[in-house]
């Protein structure tokens, strides 16, 4: 699915990622944990293709293709999805209109006709219902005056509608209350198939209790210092980043 090799990335001459290696296979869920400023969000932005990040060296291959050659929208249409830590507010654009446009962009890319209005209404009703998002909310402007939790749910709704093959969740659990965390996690779990993969970026083991990862990686100072299974997350909770990084 995704293979990152020796990736070095800098932003405005400051090196953030310093030789990152990560391989994610179909059907796997990987968790990426690490202290603030270790490069977690940078990695997520580089994967989605955000401007302003200079790839100094290394490569990212996605389903055998060189991901770095694709534009942001091409990557999205190829199945990469980034659930943002801070989703953008878009005043004047109705949420349901945005969702429909995004679905149609993907369908167009796949050579399909635009989604039928009725079919869209049914689809969105069921998906939004799963995430406990009210129909009134879909009429509001995208992310404008949404609470922190509502924004995160909106990201997961977009993810479920776009059905990505490689989803990256950037601190989706931050700002969520316990109930919302459960709903969001269930939403993610529902999407898991043997053909897609997830990279879950988080600070807390709590999210991983709901979304069980196959692998846990610890990132410090721009590279992965330790990898393991779920027990690593528990160990981390107990000992903290400092000790784990030192022992690595």
């Amino acid at each position, binding site marked *: 699915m995704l293979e990152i090799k020796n990736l070095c990335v800098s932003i405005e001459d400051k090196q953030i990622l310093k030789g990152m290696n990560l391989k994610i296979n179909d059907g796997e869920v990987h968790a990426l944990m690490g202290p603030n400023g270790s490069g977690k969000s940078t990695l997520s932005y580089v994967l989605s*293709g955000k401007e302003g990040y200079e790839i100094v060296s290394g490569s990212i291959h996605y389903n055998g293709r060189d991901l770095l050659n694709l534009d942001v929208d091409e990557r999205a*249409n190829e199945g990469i999805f980034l659930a943002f830590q801070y989703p953008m507010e878009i005043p004047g654009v109705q949420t349901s209109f945005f969702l429909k446009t995004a679905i149609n*962009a993907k369908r167009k890319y796949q050579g399909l006709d635009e989604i039928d209005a009725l079919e869209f209404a049914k689809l969105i009703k069921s998906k939004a219902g799963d995430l406990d998002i009210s129909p009134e909310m879909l009429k509001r402007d995208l992310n404008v005056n949404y609470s922190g939790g509502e924004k995160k749910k909106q990201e997961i709704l977009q993810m479920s509608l776009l059905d990505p093959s490689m989803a990256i969740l950037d601190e989706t659990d931050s700002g969520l209350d316990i109930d919302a965390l459960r709903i969001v996690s269930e939403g993610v779990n529902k999407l898991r198939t043997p053909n897609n993969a997830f990279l879950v970026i988080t600070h807390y083991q709590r999210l991983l209790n709901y979304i069980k990862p196959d692998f846990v990686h610890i990132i410090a100072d721009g590279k992965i210092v330790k990898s393991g299974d779920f027990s690593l997350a528990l160990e981390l909770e107990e000992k903290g980043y400092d000790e784990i990084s030192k022992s690595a």
Partner: protein
Amino acid sequence: MEINKENNHKSVEDISAKTQYIIENQNPFRNFKLENYKYAQLHKKIIPKNSVRDFKYFRDIKDLSLDLSTKSLKSVNLRSTLDNWSFYSNDSYFRVESLIERSGSLIPLDEFEQSIFSLDISKMTENITITKKKEKHQTIILLNTNVEDEVPKSILIDLSDNSNLDIIHYNISNHKSFLYFESKQGNHSKLNFITFQSNNAHTRNEYFASLGSHCHFELSGLNFDNVGVNDNYSFIQHLKPSSSSREVFKSIVDKGAITNFQGKIYVDSIAQKTDGYQMSRSLLLDDISKANNKPELEIYADDVKCSHGSTVSQINKDQIYYFNSRGINKNEAQKILQKAFLSETLENISSVELKDFSLKLLDNLIN
């Protein structure tokens, strides 16, 4: 880029005798730095780089409305009307003798049963005075398309106490178009003016509104996809207590076009409890285009609420990135964001059909 240079006057010598006369004799701010952009460079021949597209969407709205111009109009003497109104010629570039000396026609709206009318002012040469005395809500569509004006169209609105009127002005695909709009509102009356400007080569529109007590005036304007210079000038006078006005102008400029907005809210010393709001916002799509926004407040009463704001900005790159990350390409994202930016000005069209039409029109013109 040529258009930009053409209009980017640095020296006074470039300005015609007429403009010079106005700047020297009538410019209320002549003691301050010259603000040439307040006076459209009307003498300049602007040759649009892009050809102005033909405009065919209006068949749809003609079905909705009754054509006022098919009715015979009554002739009026405009001079006496204008002399009684409270504006002075030096407030305006257009409010000049020549305007007064033209023949005038009267449209008494109360004599019409319908609630939506259209008036094609494109070919009109006389001044139009529209009067309304009854409370019943009516809407007038002013169509101004495919014209090459030398003198401004002039529309005067006389609203009696308690009357209620919507005006939607479609100012589209003109080589040269000038509008002088003046309204006088009686107590407790409501006037809502929406101006939709696109695809013009050279436009200047002036709005003068005079408000009685407890009345409300709303002026919303959008302009985009113009070439050359687009000017909007407004002067809203609160002359009696407890009236409110709300003004929102939004513009998008690209390919070296220039948009100018100057708007003044004037509050007379007896007009206590006035509530005035003004917002002008411009989006620049490239670095050769220009937006000049100048909000002005002139307040002589001490118990009023007046606010104004003005922004000039570019499309937010992070918003584009957000669209891209959901598979929507840059071009489409920009169009959606432009529409989102402009559509606020169409929100308060009372007629649902006309609102839908205007939104569709916006959609069509941006795509």
